[in-house]
């Protein structure tokens, strides 16, 4: 029985998929997500309720993110980067592996943090309850939160002490996994592939420039930076490096990235003392 049912649902699914042109992803309307108004979020001991966020969303968010949560609000033409399409359930800032849904806490943190160098401000003015309600509201736009669970957050070991050896080891990781292909050897976002980068919807996108003093979009603590390259920023060219950088090496890389940043840091000072040179893009693999 189940086989038949699966067969039919797959067939119907296949027909629906094949009937659509590749680039046009389904656009849901209110009738699709209204049944999900009972969506909840759980942040610590706070429970967010989607239906309670309707007023805040209409007042503060709708102008960019749109009535249908598809990122197609009135301001869409005027803002860059473009507002997030909540219907797809794809988010940059996650503690979870690439290709999985973020946790409620991830969305909660994003709302409070805002997105540096975008039109998304810090919404720390909301109470925690209001933010939790907005998280549930954001989730109610995508059918993915009905059938799928968020990914399991990656494990971040405690941050070790910064040492000259660790900074040098971080430079080796930077060279080995070739961060410079996009971010440039000095972190100036001018690597050979930087000019052709596109997001998942084919829109031009810039690599992060470490040297301008900007804050990374998904947070600027050491743990944030660790998480960014280990989970990747879904919807953008930034891939997950979780399979290719070991947890200990990841901390080394965090320390090295600090040396590229404009902001003053212990790491930057140590790199100066070491006389650390930028990586050589022409050196054969493993010979920096």
């Amino acid at each position, binding site marked *: 029985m189940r086989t038949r049912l699966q067969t039919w649902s797959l067939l119907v699914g296949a027909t629906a998929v094949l009937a659509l042109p590749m680039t046009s992803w389904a656009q849901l309307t209110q009738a699709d997500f209204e049944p999900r108004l009972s969506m909840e979020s759980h942040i610590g001991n706070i429970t967010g309720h989607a239906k309670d966020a309707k007023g805040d969303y209409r007042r503060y968010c709708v102008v960019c993110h749109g009535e249908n949560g598809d990122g197609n609000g009135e301001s869409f033409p005027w803002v860059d980067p473009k507002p997030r399409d909540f219907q797809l359930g794809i988010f940059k800032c996650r503690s979870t592996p690439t290709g999985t849904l973020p946790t409620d806490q991830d969305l909660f943190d994003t709302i409070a943090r805002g997105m540096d160098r975008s039109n998304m401000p810090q919404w720390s003015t909301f109470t925690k309850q209001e933010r939790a309600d907005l998280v549930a509201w954001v989730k109610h736009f995508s059918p993915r939160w009905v059938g799928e669970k968020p990914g399991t957050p990656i494990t971040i070991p405690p941050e070790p002490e910064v040492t000259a050896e660790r900074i040098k080891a971080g430079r080796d990781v930077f060279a080995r*996994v070739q961060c410079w292909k996009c971010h440039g050897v000095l972190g100036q976002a001018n690597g050979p592939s930087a000019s052709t980068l596109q997001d998942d919807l084919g829109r031009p996108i810039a690599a992060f420039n470490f040297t301008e003093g900007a804050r990374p979009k998904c947070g600027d603590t050491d743990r944030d930076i660790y998480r960014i390259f280990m989970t990747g920023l879904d919807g953008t060219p930034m891939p997950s490096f979780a*399979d290719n950088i070991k947890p200990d090496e990841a901390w080394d890389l965090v320390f090295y990235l600090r040396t590229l940043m404009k902001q003053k840091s212990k790491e930057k000072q140590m790199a100066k003392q070491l006389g650390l040179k930028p990586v050589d893009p022409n050196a054969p693999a493993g010979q920096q």
Partner: protein
Amino acid sequence: MRNRYRYSALLSVVVLTCCAALFLGRHVSAAGEGKITGTVKLDGPAPHMKGIDMSKDPYCSKAHANDTPTLQTVVAGASGGLENVVLYISDWSGPATVSTTVPVFDQKNCMYTPHVLAMDVGQTFKVTTSDQTTHNIHPLPNPMTGNIPWNQSQPPGAAPVEKSWKAPEMIPVKCNIHPWMNGWYVVVKGPYATTDANGNFTINGVPPGNYTVTAWQESLGTQTAKVTVAAGGAGTADFTFKAK
């Protein structure tokens, strides 16, 4: 109480019928499986495939020191046979078998080999890299289908990435670091085949019956044909795509 008995009796009947149907179905298909063969051709001159400038990555351009890599959007042989066309049974209602073989999608000389990889829904495939340059492997399915996009780095010497897809879909895959690299995962349910360099194909394991066969080409679109397969026999379906 009585209702519950009636319910379980009904359930057993349904389950038994299904088991019997499955068993018989398998029996019949195992005994009389046929195939569908044919050729896919291009009508008109093969479109010019642009050469790829890989000079931004010296590793890639060096790998092609003795040849000129070109885009693979339309690959036509000397006799007009079209390569990389996927043929599948679009009205397949049989069981959704999942092959246990693990096909490989390799990143070699900054190109995808093969350019088009067809597979069953749920079948595990493996992404490998033979290159001494970092790639990121970034499939872009429509998340509304149940297939979710992901994006993983593969630096030199990286271990293979093993994945599968949940739903039938033609999924473009690309590397953001090398923007010319693009390929396809064609995820289908039921028997399928991919054309060779001469445009020839054979779909094996087709039970007797009447089918609609669809031919999919990444830029030329799809075509369908009705095919009848007799027990142990071979149906034929030839397709011609007009050059654009």
